[in-house]
């Protein structure tokens, strides 16, 4: 492998007259947030490893408008959406994968009425498919005997009914999957959705991610598996709040899969 991993952009591919099999929509958190960048790189390694021809938009990607829409700013949302749709349609994109449930939900559900029609999948769905096809192994290794709990992202689970794909990606790890008390359709939010990520919470007894830690501690999880960069931030802050950084690790499904395949 080269010391520098080349990530193809749509502009480069298009200049060569090529089309990718799938566009990797990185998202703002995956692009800028230091912790989430590691998720992005882990997922890019998986895509490289299985030989899927992919590309990113790079500097042509812009916020999907999700936080603006959830906060009630429909103008800003539609400005963002229409700009992105113009870029995506310009490259004749058909299929999109993203590691962010917010981007996933917005592009999948809210872009069609504005003229953006794509097949959109979440990265845990792609990973589950690749495991099923035998292209990714998911052997225990580092995870053997560990207790792993999956925290459902609202916009993947309740928002779009995807509960099984992330669990499929964890099932074959030889690890001990322990469901959190509030899981699947009854999952408790991490506290970041609806643009809460970008503001201080209203006065209350405690923060939502601290409440969520009670479920994590009760499940005695060694690893909290997440599928959303915002959940990642909130769960990490929660673990710090309960001072369990030594005992509990928060990892994205992409990072777990990459590690199980010797890519990390």
């Amino acid at each position, binding site marked *: 492998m080269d010391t520098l991993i080349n990530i193809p952009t749509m502009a480069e591919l298009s200049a060569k007259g090529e089309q990718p099999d799938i566009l990797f929509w990185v998202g703002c958190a995956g692009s*800028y947030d230091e912790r989430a960048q590691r998720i992005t*790189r882990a997922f890019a390694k998986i895509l490289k490893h299985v030989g899927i021809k992919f590309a990113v938009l790079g500097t042509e990607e812009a916020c999907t408008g999700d936080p603006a829409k959830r906060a*009630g700013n429909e103008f800003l949302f539609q400005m963002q959406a229409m700009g992105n749709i113009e870029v995506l349609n310009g490259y004749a994109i058909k299929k999109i994968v993203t590691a962010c449930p917010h981007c996933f*939900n917005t592009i999948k559900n809210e872009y069609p009425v504005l003229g953006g029609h794509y097949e959109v999948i979440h990265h845990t769905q792609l990973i589950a498919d690749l495991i099923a096809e035998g292209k990714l192994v998911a052997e225990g290794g580092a995870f053997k005997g560990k207790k792993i709990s999956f925290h459902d992202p609202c916009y993947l689970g309740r*928002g*779009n009914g995807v509960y099984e794909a992330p669990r499929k990606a964890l099932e074959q790890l030889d690890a001990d999957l322990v469901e959190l008390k509030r899981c699947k359709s009854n999952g408790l939010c991490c506290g970041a959705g609806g643009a809460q990520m970008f503001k201080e919470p*209203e006065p209350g007894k405690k923060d939502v991610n601290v409440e969520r830690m009670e479920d994590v501690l009760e499940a005695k999880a060694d690893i909290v598996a997440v599928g959303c960069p915002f959940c990642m931030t909130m769960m990490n802050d929660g673990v710090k709040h309960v001072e369990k950084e030594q005992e509990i690790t928060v990892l994205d499904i992409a990072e777990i899969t990459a590690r199980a395949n010797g890519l990390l």
Partner: protein
Amino acid sequence: MLAQIVFTLVFIVAVALFTVQVRKIIRNIRLGKNICRNDRKAERWTTMARVAMGQSKMMVRPVAGLMHLFVYLGFVIINLEVLEIVLDGIFGTHRLFAFMGGFYSFLIGSFEILALLVLLGVLVFLARRLVVRLKRFSGVEMKAWPKSDAIYILLIEVLLMTAFLTMNAADYQLQSRLYGHYIQAGAFPVSQFLSPLLPSSTEALVFIERFCWWFHIIGILAFLNYLPISKHFHILLAFPNTWYSNLNPKGHFSNMQSVSNEVKAMLDPSFTPPPADPDAKFGAKDVVDLNWVQLMNAYTCTECGRCTSVCPANITGKLLSPRKIMMDTRDRLEELGKAKDKNGASYHDGKALLDDYISREEIWACTTCNACVEACPVNIDPLSIILDLRRYAVMEESNVPNSLSAMFANVENNAAPWKYAPADRLNWAQGDWSKE
């Protein structure tokens, strides 16, 4: 004969009063904006069959679900008996359907068992509210009327079921004495055990049978007129409410066509938007800015609090309670409807849902996680109301928490909610991370 006339008059007046009340509620619901929810009809019928008739979402909480199933089946099935009671009242007959013979015995027998199960359910519900005091039945919005309303409903049901069983117990005794018109009809698997408790004189038994008959049917007619002012109205609205459910994925928030027109006009000068309604607002300030399905949601809410008990904001002590959003919407709509009754249809009292009922602190505490929507046993959508109030605050007033204005500015200027340069978007791929 006099009894027949009295009964018929009471029945007509009760149904007429109920109709007047229901028409007011329909008028109020129609104050909402239009929304098309007539598509995908097959899916709508199955949703209604599964969620309302099949009680599918009630069973998520097994104890409450099972007890509610008893009360629900009792309500639906014992109403067949009410039909006979009404016809008997009008025609002065006794057990008009007795000609059905064995099937009639089966029906009456099942009604008795159901009545007993209803009593069990209702007593469990009373215990949960008065003895166990479940947290979900408290909360700021559950003081005064909503608190007593729930207890009144349960007590009325205890009285109605007790009257029904006592009436049958007396009838059973009279039948065994072959007294007068008390022909042998029906089976009494429950009330036969009550009958030894009754006095032995035939006159007293006839009095008890008649008293309970009148008490039961007048109670039902009075209860009918109690429904429209009570949370118990859900027994009717649950059906249309689930039929008109939002069938899109829960993460899919409604598109605002009015905004699309303006944005398209900004991006493409040759695009001519259709003329905008000068009175239209972006989002909702008051109930009339919401759509009629949201207003029907408000009248359907039975204040069970499953939404609030799973709301992350509420669990962590914030002011937001999705149940209160629905109750406020209903209370405000009732207030506006009454003001219009008094002062004419075009009257507006100058109050609004936002600020007069629902505070800013409540709407900004929502994480849009959809837990409330998922939890509602009759598919009410409190989140859509919260979003419409936010839309008004943002797009009509520019009145948002400062940190959110900063986020908006970042999205607008840097194409990301944080202040990073768009040129740095691919920085994550730089450097050597092959060994990471």
